[in-house]
């Protein structure tokens, strides 16, 4: 036998390696057998243990799932918020098992808008959402070309949280109408005692979140309904000017991490006496960091901008989508409908994790209106959330939302710190964005 040359041996091994790689991509893919009734062990991925707990309880709650052709059970896999989307894609590409339902954090959903990922991976839930018409809020952020692909868990209504005891002590009226008046008072109490009536976050891209909250309240938006950047506007200039003025006068604290130790310290030493944040901040921000201040905090709708806008705003959110072409896809849609879009499900969700209803008419029902918050000194919190929900601004996003956050972070900070005029900062950010997204 002729001896094999070294080159030949390496070529052979190379081909063998290619063969191994090629074979790993081949596997039998069977046909999907849709389960139309009976046992439905729903596989779910979520980053939040609160949702895991709610869905597990809901699967056994006859009031919620009674009458369904399926007998639900929920197996939850805990995955980080970005990991849910990353793993959905990689598993789909590798044709590995996918969950039946996935919790999609609002910023991560923007990734699924690219190249039709949402359309390819998720069940179109438009018909489910359409049954409720305009009564169902926050569908626009999880939509692509007019089709809804996930149902929001929580309205994430931003209101103003404030220390009633300190407001009273400092003579700050609890019903100040406008931000302009509020800032004036804020500047005075900052100069007199170092108090702050708000906070601007400035770490990483969190400043964009802070700005976005103000922008939406003022009536502006990062994107329009068609997904086009619409942030260079009079509303954006007003919002940015207000933030810059607040930081300049000391009315607003400029903090690194809005959920970190420094913010907790500012709350704990009575320096930060008011803050605009969504409903979940009551549990994750206030109760978690300053439990000893129970009974001292209250909530109210946000003071208006004198130029117009809303009395509420929004940050964050997590919606649940149903993965398409799974044996239990139909069962998962039914499960989602019963647990997320029924009044009983919305009430159960609120009691399980404080998730606000997404059906706006529920805010006026006795079940919700009678809820009192112990942490807020027995305040009937839905008397605040009700009007806020009716005036909640829409939140649109685009596949380029991540690039937008990056492009805007630096210029916004510059404007907030008074280094450039808000108009110039916004224009610079928009220019940078257009260069990044290659439109």
């Amino acid at each position, binding site marked *: *036998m002729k*001896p*094999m040359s*070294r080159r030949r*041996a*390496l070529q052979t*091994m*190379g081909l*063998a*390696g*290619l063969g*191994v*790689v090629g074979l790993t991509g081949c596997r039998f893919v069977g046909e999907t057998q849709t389960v139309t009734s009976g046992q439905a062990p729903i596989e779910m991925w979520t980053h939040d243990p609160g949702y895991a707990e709610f869905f597990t309880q809901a699967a056994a709650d006859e009031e919620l799932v009674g009458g369904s052709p399926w007998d639900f059970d929920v197996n939850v896999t805990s995955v980080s918020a*970005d990991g849910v*989307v*990353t793993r959905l*894609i*990689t598993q*789909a*590409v590798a044709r590995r098992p996918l969950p039946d339902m996935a919790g999609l954090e609002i910023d991560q959903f923007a*990734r*699924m808008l*690219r*190249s*039709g*990922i949402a359309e*390819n*991976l998720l069940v179109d839930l438009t018909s489910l959402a359409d049954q409720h018409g305009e009564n169902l809020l926050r569908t626009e952020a999880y939509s692509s070309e007019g089709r809804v692909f996930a149902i929001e868990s929580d309205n994430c209504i931003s209101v103003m949280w404030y220390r009633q005891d300190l407001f009273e002590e400092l003579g700050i009226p609890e019903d100040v109408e406008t931000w302009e008046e509020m800032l004036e008072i804020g500047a005075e109490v900052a100069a007199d005692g170092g108090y702050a009536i708000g906070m601007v976050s*400035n*770490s*990483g*891209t*969190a*400043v964009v979140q802070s700005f976005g909250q103000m922008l939406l309240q003022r009536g502006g938006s990062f994107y329009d309904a068609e997904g086009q950047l619409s942030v260079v506007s009079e509303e954006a200039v007003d919002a940015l000017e207000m933030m810059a003025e607040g930081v300049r006068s000391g009315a607003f*604290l*400029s*903090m*690194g*991490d809005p959920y*970190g*130790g*420094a913010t907790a*310290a*500012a709350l704990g030493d009575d320096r930060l006496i008011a803050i605009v944040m969504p409903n979940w901040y009551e549990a994750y921000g206030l109760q978690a960091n300053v439990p000893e201040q129970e009974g001292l905090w209250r909530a109210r709708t946000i003071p208006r901008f004198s130029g117009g806008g809303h009395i509420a705003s929004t940050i964050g959110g997590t919606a649940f989508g149903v993965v398409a072409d799974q044996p239990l896809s139909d069962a998962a849609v039914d499960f989602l409908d019963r647990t997320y879009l029924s009044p009983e499900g919305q009430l159960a969700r609120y009691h399980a994790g404080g998730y606000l209803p997404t059906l706006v008419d529920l805010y006026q029902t006795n079940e919700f209106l009678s809820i009192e918050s112990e942490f807020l000194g027995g305040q009937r919190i839905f008397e605040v959330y009700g009007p806020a929900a009716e005036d909640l601004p829409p939140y649109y996003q685009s*596949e*380029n939302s*991540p*690039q937008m956050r*990056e*492009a805007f*972070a*630096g*210029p*916004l*900070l*510059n404007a907030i710190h008074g280094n450039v005029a808000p108009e110039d900062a916004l224009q610079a950010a928009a220019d*940078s964005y257009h*260069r*990044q997204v*290659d439109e």
Partner: protein
Amino acid sequence: MTSRTRWTPYVFISPFFILFFVFMIVPVGAGAYLSLTEWAGLGTPEFIGLDNYRRLMDDPVFGISLFNTGFYTLCALLIVFPAALLMAVALNARGLKLRDFFRMIYFMPVVLSPIIIALIFGLIFDGEYGLFNAILQALFGYAGINWLTDPLWARVVVVILVLWRWTGFLTIFFLAGLQGIPRELYESAEIDGAGPLRRFFSVTMPQLRPVTAFIAVTMLFNTAQIFEEPFLLTEGGPGQSTVSIAMFIYRAGFEQQELGYAAAAGVMMFIIVFVLGLAAARVFGVGRSNQ
């Protein structure tokens, strides 16, 4: 020679080549190809030629990340590297007690979880409630440095973190090198009238050259791919001011879902690191004999 004996050496060396091919050549080739496509992760990548590279050249954030990575690398070489050497020399001093204890202490930052380090550094350098500003306030009556929210200072804090984390680790390598230098060389130099400085430059540095070369090149590779420090400490902020190339790639791939674009940035990083590595290897004489 029988057929079996002819094959034997190839069988023995084949595991490395198979693994190298599957886990290195294939991914690198796939990455290079992906860099010429537009792909979000699902569906078929669309070939777009060099568009991703053109876009990179025009992307201001990529420019910032290049600058930042260069800044971190330069600081690592100009600050961390000499600091490690000086600490090693100090630890190598004759008669030093508790040498092992100090060595362990210097090594600890490398073993600690970067997440814990970032959390602690975040608290230390917080502008409003940080320890550092409190100390500055107590000593000088001024605590106005926005460590993590001012672009320049945020970069400095990242460098401080790199310094804190890696100096002790590199010190161990230098110390090992120093302990290998024969005492007689120092004694001869002393007899010849060489002072401490002269001994350092004429005995220590030449004898440490192989170790120095290894550390310098390793440090260059590591810092050019820096990710954890800015990612955990500042998330690349304020704005984009502390983003590194590795962070840029991560964001493009896993936050913006632009895998082709991320691959193009990866290829750029590979070329830059490769060229820098070659240059450093040549400058420091890696792989060459001491003669």
